[in-house]
């Protein structure tokens, strides 16, 4: 693979690859059902390294019958798990948290290989927050009656959980930790392009001696996910992914008693006022859209910059983009890794081409991209109007659309002019304006003078078509308890 790119404003770096020898990838993987790895009854599919296109492993594609077995195992385990004292359940979660820390480097390297994200992100963001999530919810397991969700909080039963490929292990943690803490058992499906860390997590459950059936992991694609969502013995559906699939899930569960949490798409506005600390704002814009290759549902994909500082912000943004290093995800100096799949790359290319065709001006720094694998340079579009597709649709890639505004009211109007409502950013030195904007923005998470911060204690989730329910914090418990009133 080519070393990290040489770019206009950057330093030359020698390659600094993280060793992948810490990870032992098996040639093939079965399903994790009832505490054991078993062969699936369906076919199998390949998972590849998106940075090299090499095949990493053959993974079982769970059939409807496989899903049924997993749900049955979860149902059998529910009786014991839900009746176990919270204090004892907590200890299992603490064990899992500790093993995640102990095997943190292995998890980070495997995540970067399977997903394409830079090792500095999987190592410093994903895996530490994963462990923190299990620690946080472990502590809740024996304190549920103090959560303000009723005097006798009861779990829901079997949770069916379907997660995306952008933060494979982190989304697993967001789903599994609160479910288990509340006494539910789970059947989880990782995304078809990123199953490997979930399967390693299954091994971690074995190492923790978690009772069989409490966590079941079934790999597969959309049909497998649909089988989980539609299974009559699933009491709770938790999904993170596209708004389109989220709507399909809402239709599927209609008329049932299933409880649902949906974390869907976004088109967040990142609003920069003329009094903002420009250098900090530029860092926030960069992390807002280029973190994780822009494969982030809450990405700050629409930059709204006040007209009076637009030229200055753009000039500094372009200079900063020129220093971003695109390349080998395992290189410790890499800022932007590989696009997760050829399908996603095609979508990013298509929408970017549409952006140009509709009249927006495209710019990307000079960038040597590796010859194999899936890559897209950090890209900014200026001259974008609210009607442009790149201002309305989720690109889910390192592509920023820039719009301008004159007054705070105009910024609010433009920011809220989207069917989505997941997140928003505000940059200004004026405290009263921050609080005004925070109250006006129809979004579930507002980052003021920061962006893309995540913490297990901090509830996360959307307004409008970004979904419903919250994950994280005390609110995240409500989604897994009967009568959870939050």
């Amino acid at each position, binding site marked *: 693979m080519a070393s990290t790119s040489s770019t206009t404003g950057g330093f030359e770096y020698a390659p600094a690859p993280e060793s992948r020898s810490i990870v032992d990838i098996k040639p093939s993987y079965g399903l994790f059902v009832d505490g054991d790895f078993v062969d699936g009854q369906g076919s199998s599919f390949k998972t590849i390294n998106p940075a090299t296109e090499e095949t990493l492993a053959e993974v079982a594609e769970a059939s409807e019958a496989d899903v049924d077995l997993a749900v049955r195992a979860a149902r059998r385990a529910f009786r014991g798990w839900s009746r176990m004292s919270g204090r004892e359940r907590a200890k299992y979660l603490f064990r899992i948290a500790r093993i995640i820390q102990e095997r943190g480097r292995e998890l980070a390297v495997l995540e970067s290989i399977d997903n394409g994200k830079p090792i500095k992100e999987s190592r410093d963001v994903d895996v530490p927050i994963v462990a923190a999530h299990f620690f946080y919810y472990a502590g809740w397991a024996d304190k549920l009656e103090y959560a303000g969700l009723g005097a006798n909080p009861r779990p829901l039963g079997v949770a069916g959980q379907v997660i995306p490929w952008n933060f494979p292990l982190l989304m697993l943690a967001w789903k599994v930790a609160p479910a288990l803490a509340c006494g539910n058992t789970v059947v989880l499906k990782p995304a078809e392009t990123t199953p490997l860390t979930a399967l390693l997590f299954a091994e971690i459950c074995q190492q923790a001696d978690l009772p069989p059936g409490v966590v079941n992991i079934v790999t597969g694609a959309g049909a497998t996910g649909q089988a989980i969502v539609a299974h009559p013995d699933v009491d709770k559906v938790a999904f993170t992914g596209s708004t389109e699939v989220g709507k399909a899930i809402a239709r599927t569960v*209609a*008329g049932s008693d299933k409880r649902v949490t949906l974390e869907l798409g976004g088109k967040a506005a990142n609003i920069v006022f003329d009094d903002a600390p420009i250098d900090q704002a530029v860092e926030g814009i960069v992390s807002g859209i280029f973190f994780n290759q822009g494969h982030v549902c809450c990405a700050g994909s629409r930059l709204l910059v006040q007209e009076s500082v637009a030229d200055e912000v753009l000039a500094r943004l372009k200079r900063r983009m020129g220093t971003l290093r695109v390349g080998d995800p395992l290189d410790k100096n890499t800022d932007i890794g590989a696009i997760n799949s050829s399908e996603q790359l095609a979508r990013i290319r298509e929408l970017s081409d549409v952006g140009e065709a509709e009249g927006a001006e495209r710019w990307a720094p000079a960038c040597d991209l590796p010859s194999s694998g899936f890559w897209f340079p950090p890209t900014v579009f200026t001259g974008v109007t609210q009607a442009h597709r790149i201002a309305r649709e989720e690109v889910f890639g390192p592509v920023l659309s820039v719009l301008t505004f004159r007054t705070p009211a105009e910024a609010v109007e433009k920011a809220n002019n989207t069917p989505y409502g997941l997140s928003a950013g505000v940059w200004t030195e004026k405290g009263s304006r921050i609080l005004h904007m925070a109250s006006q923005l129809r979004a579930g998470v507002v980052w003021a003078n920061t962006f893309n911060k995540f913490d297990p*204690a*901090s509830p996360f989730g959307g307004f409008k078509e970004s979904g*419903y329910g*919250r994950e994280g*914090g005390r609110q995240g418990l409500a989604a897994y308890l009967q009568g959870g009133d939050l």
Partner: protein
Amino acid sequence: MAASRIDVRKTYKLYIGGAFPRSESGHSYEVTDSKGRFVANAALASRKDVRDAVVAARKAFGPWSARTAYNRGQILYRIAEVMEDRRPQFEEAVRQSEGASAAAARAQVDAAVDRLVWYAGWADKLAQVIGNANPVAGPFFNHTAPEPTGVVGVLAPQSSSLLGLVSVVAPVIVTGNVAVVVSSYARPLPAVTFAEVLATSDVPGGVVNILTGDAAVLGPWLASHMDVNAIDLCGVAGSPDLATSLEVAAADNLTRVRRAPDAEPDWSAEPGLAPMTAFVEQKTVWHPIGI
């Protein structure tokens, strides 16, 4: 010849945007008392009335949600005051609609007024009960608090014409939402009288819009309306197929759904938080801490 005075009868109309229009369709339907005797013609709301009501509600949402919680609580209390003043009228309406005894009708009205007072007090307390500060692992101020979901469609219960109605409307508006309500089809008259109370209780026009008509006809338009943020399906309790089709329609823009119960609940029970929390969004705000 004894001069007997002829009653001046009331025309029962819709309540949209603070005004009392007839149905745009020009249609009305016969409302009878519990024994089947004609009482009045009620306006039969149409799809276009739903549309007009949603427009009025959306217009009212910004200012209503921006009111202080204290002020919203004051206004809900004011509704209770005005209703208390008109208790004999409501008792008669409930007795006539539901066939209740005078004592039972009085109990319903008492409970409805008391429920408004109960909800009025929640206005400035809910955020303290269901919101929280979040101790994140970093130098950040971080808190989470509820905000209204927006325009809420409310299919009001079919049996409990007043207490049930008040019990589904109050939680929606006290949290800062605005409502488009479809009243009980067979027992709509207490809802129209309630609208007259709203109109004289400092509730801004458009915050509550009340349509008399058929939930089975109007529900699909409300559930599928792209500018409706949430819907309470209580009014189709006992019709699971209809409830399912409304939930499917709501999925097109991820309208939040409060599912219909199997049967109308006991409205005299204390409601708990669920009727309010079904129609709020939790918003989390981060800011760095530094010098």
